């Protein structure tokens, strides 16, 4: 496994560690951490801030029955149902494996262009559209610009654009107005996780008349 060269902004890691990062971004950060020992250690150190603040908190008396209540719940705990992952599932980071391989309805790959397939993931939030993209070897995507933020993490293989080559674990943030033309590597297909910010909030009373926004940007 190569060492990722593109990392999330430290502010994102702080919010991840503090637990204030949105679901979609958290999935992307977790996917990056799967590949990046450097950032994993950084998060471990960041967790120590929370730990210190917790241990310095002014203790608050808890209800005198709380301990007994916890103990009786412990005695009634059902056996933990573990989801079994095989090796094939775990080639992806765990949250992706759960959302893709182990989803109640396994997402389908759909053709988006001659060289790109996409599979939408159900993540229980609507601020970002989270999906997997598969670019075939040497596949060219159309040049496009972004209408909102997009986070991308390479899960398998590599792709390149005008500015760099991105390999497994690389974390890429595209901002509004960025323009680029990603291209799959020649030597094999590339699978990426991406979270694309919803450009329009359907807040108007006629929102239902508008189509749910369509993903036009492949990467």
């Amino acid at each position: 496994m190569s060492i990722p060269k593109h990392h999330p902004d430290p502010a994102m890691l702080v919010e991840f560690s503090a637990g204030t990062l949105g679901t979609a971004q958290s999935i992307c950060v977790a996917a990056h951490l799967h590949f990046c020992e450097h950032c994993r250690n950084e998060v471990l150190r960041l967790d120590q801030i929370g730990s210190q603040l917790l241990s310095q908190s002014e203790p608050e008396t808890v209800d005198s029955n709380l301990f007994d209540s916890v103990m009786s719940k412990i005695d009634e705990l059902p056996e933990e149902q573990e989801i079994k992952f095989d090796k094939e599932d775990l080639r992806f980071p765990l949250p992706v494996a759960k959302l893709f391989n182990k989803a109640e309805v396994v997402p389908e790959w759909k053709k988006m262009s001659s060289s790109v397939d996409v599979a939408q993931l159900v993540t229980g939030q609507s601020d970002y559209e989270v999906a997997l993209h598969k670019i075939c070897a040497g596949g060219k995507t159309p040049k496009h610009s972004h209408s909102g933020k997009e986070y991308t993490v390479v899960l398998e293989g590599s792709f390149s654009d005008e500015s760099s080559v991105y390999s497994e674990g690389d974390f890429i943030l595209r901002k509004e107005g960025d323009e680029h033309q990603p291209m799959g590597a020649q030597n094999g297909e590339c699978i990426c996780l991406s979270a694309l910010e919803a450009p329009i909030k359907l807040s108007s009373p006629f929102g239902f008349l508008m189509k749910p926004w369509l993903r036009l940007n492949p990467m």
Partner: protein
Amino acid sequence: MLGTKIANFENKPKPSAKMGVLNSEKRSDQWSLLLVDVGLNRSRKSFAQLFAHFAPLLKSFAQASRHEGWFPGLSEDLVQEVMIKVWQKAAGYNPEKASATTWIYTVARNCRIDMLRRKSNTQHLPLENEDFWHEPDEETPVTLLRQKRSEDKVQASLAQLPPEQDEILRKVYLEGKSHAEASEELGLPLGTVKSRVRLALQKMQILVAPEFRDELL
């Protein structure tokens, strides 16, 4: 970090169940030893001691929350949920990796997010927050010594942060504000909030540029 590496942990030499046997590679603080005892021996006595120490801290942590949708009545629910998780997951606690306090903080953070998500979501998210902290199996262990040193550094330097940096970290970690929300509340530009956080992290030597990874600490 949370119970997902049980198999690996079993392969390592087991931490002595007899407490008090210490050497440089064992974590020796009282809470970590108790937590290991709960994990290995399902000791209710040790669990009771952990509860007596952590439940009041966790309640205080819960009461500090200013998350949207959070109200003080949830505090003891959170304490209860966290302590049950501690019991369930204790076998996965790896004292080489983190102190018991840090581990319990991560359990509390994850439970808090899951509780908030359950309250606010109409759609079901098939993930629990601890899934985000799953570690791949080929993990190279961070040595305890290095880990300890960084904990001591964070502890010592957190106490010496200028008030404006301390304030923001508290807002983020305890109240659960994003950088953007903190900037709005404090009437500061987002850039200022981010740079204060970054200065604090540099002081605590938490941030290390990727190119220096090998010289870490």
